[in-house]
């Protein structure tokens, strides 16, 4: 149904890839030319080699961090959507509670995390909770906005047909809110990862449950800078991948009808 000219699709991938290649080559050339020691700035090659060598350790740590981030994202989606549904029931509820959602958003998680970690016995749960606090706000605010952004004509039509509150919610408000929800989800996916990493930093959990943040901390203490870079690269790639997945899901859900996902080249 939607066809993109082949060339533009290639360019969309090739252009940023070319930039990455140039930057990596330049980086490699500079570290070689100035003989920069790898405990200050490792060359891309060294980072890549470290990534391969330490893959067992790093991937298991990535698994821990990603697990926390995904669990937090899932909780944020469920809780955030439910909160938004409660908010749109009445202006009074929203007016009374929305400031507290904002409060949660503006309080730095680094300041909150120690408390949460003290209060919650299970560290994993505490970490997930921290990430939820960071990730939930865009879901709440976007979904609330979406549930309210209903075509007034359609609302009149539902009233004329004597639709129940439930029918208005399920057949009108929720479908209208989907594009807004997915907008919130994109932001929340990145925030969940950030929240997970920050919380790990604060908790400093080592041992078998050590996440990528702990590996970064440890590598820093040990001046194992190549490993630090390798962990950093893994986090970055994971963040991009998470974002990509949410974009893909939103495109799958909305491409048929919503302007934001229609192919502009069509």
């Amino acid at each position: 149904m939607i066809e993109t000219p082949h060339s533009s699709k290639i360019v969309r991938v090739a252009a940023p890839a070319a930039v990455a290649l140039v930057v990596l080559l330049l980086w490699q050339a500079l570290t070689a030319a100035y003989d920069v020691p790898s405990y200050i700035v490792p060359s891309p090659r060294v980072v890549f080699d470290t990534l391969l060598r330490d893959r067992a350790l790093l991937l298991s740590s990535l698994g821990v961090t990603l697990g926390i981030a995904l669990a937090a994202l899932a909780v944020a989606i469920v809780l955030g959507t439910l909160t938004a549904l409660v908010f749109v029931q009445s202006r009074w509820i929203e007016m009374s509670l929305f400031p507290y959602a904002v409060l949660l958003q503006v309080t730095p998680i680094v300041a909150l995390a120690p408390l949460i970690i003290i209060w919650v016995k299970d560290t994993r749960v505490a970490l997930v909770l921290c990430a939820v606090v960071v990730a939930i706000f865009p879901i709440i605010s976007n979904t609330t906005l979406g549930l309210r952004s209903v075509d007034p004509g359609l609302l009149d039509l539902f009233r004329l047909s004597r639709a129940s509150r439930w029918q208005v919610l399920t057949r009108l408000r929720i479908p209208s809110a989907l594009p807004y929800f997915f907008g919130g989800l994109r932001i929340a996916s990145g925030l969940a990862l950030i929240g997970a990493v920050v919380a790990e930093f604060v908790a400093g959990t080592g041992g078998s449950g050590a996440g990528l943040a702990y590996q970064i901390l440890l590598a820093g203490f040990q001046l194992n800078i190549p490993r630090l870079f390798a962990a950093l690269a893994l986090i970055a790639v994971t963040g991009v991948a998470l974002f990509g997945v949410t974009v893909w899901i939103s495109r799958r859900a909305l491409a048929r009808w919503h302007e934001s996902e229609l192919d502009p080249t069509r």
Partner: protein
Amino acid sequence: MDPGHRQQGEGPALSAAGAPAEAATVVALAGVDKTFANGTRALAPVDLAVRRGEFVSLLGPSGCGKTTLLNITAGLVTPTHGTVRWWGGPLAATGADGRRLAFVFQSPTLMPWARVDTNVRLPLDLAGADRATADRAVGEALERVGLQGFAHHLPRELSGGMQMRVSIARALVTHPDLLLMDEPFGALDEFTRQRLDEDLSTLWRERGLTVMFVTHSIIEAVFLSTRVAVMAARPGQLIADVAIDAPFPRDDAFRVSTTAADYGRRLSALVAHAGAQPGAGARSA
């Protein structure tokens, strides 16, 4: 209500629609006015009765309260004073067989995520109609508006005129007795509008509908109506009631006939007079 206080053109146009002269009153507004919460006086007291089989147009410039009056007639807006009776009863008694009303908005007002057939089916779904009945009604309604091949399309894949047809099909799907239309073709080009006007006129006659139609096009009002209620602004009020006494079906020849031109001139003078002297269009009562 009491039909005695209409300025001109009292009723006989009904004969053209094939309805008896003493047809039952479908909707009656008595002393209905509206002042919005912000203090805007949208409508001065209005008396208006629409009988079965009539095609009544509300004609007037922007801001003369046409849409407010129509929304009150639909029960979407509660009047500040006055009463509205539907088939002699309250709004709650509508919706039964022979007492159904449907509304067509200025814009197509379709659910962008739903296919054409789902959009048309909506009023039946909300009322909890069974599947087979609904399927049949949807197919029939789409055929009525000439969109039988487009059931599985999405609204955005259709032109503006086709979207408006979907909107009309959705209004027809419940077999309404009273059809309220708020400038439905106002945003369309002249050719599309003329075609839809013709189709609507045919539909009205074949289905024995009663229609209240808001428009600011004099030509459209003359072409479609058995009766034109002329409105003036500041505050919105009814200033004249003109019966369009010409036989149906009306075609392109009627559009350019002297009869149509005469009515057009008359309505035009009424609207211009009302516009020139705001508030001076004394109510015909």
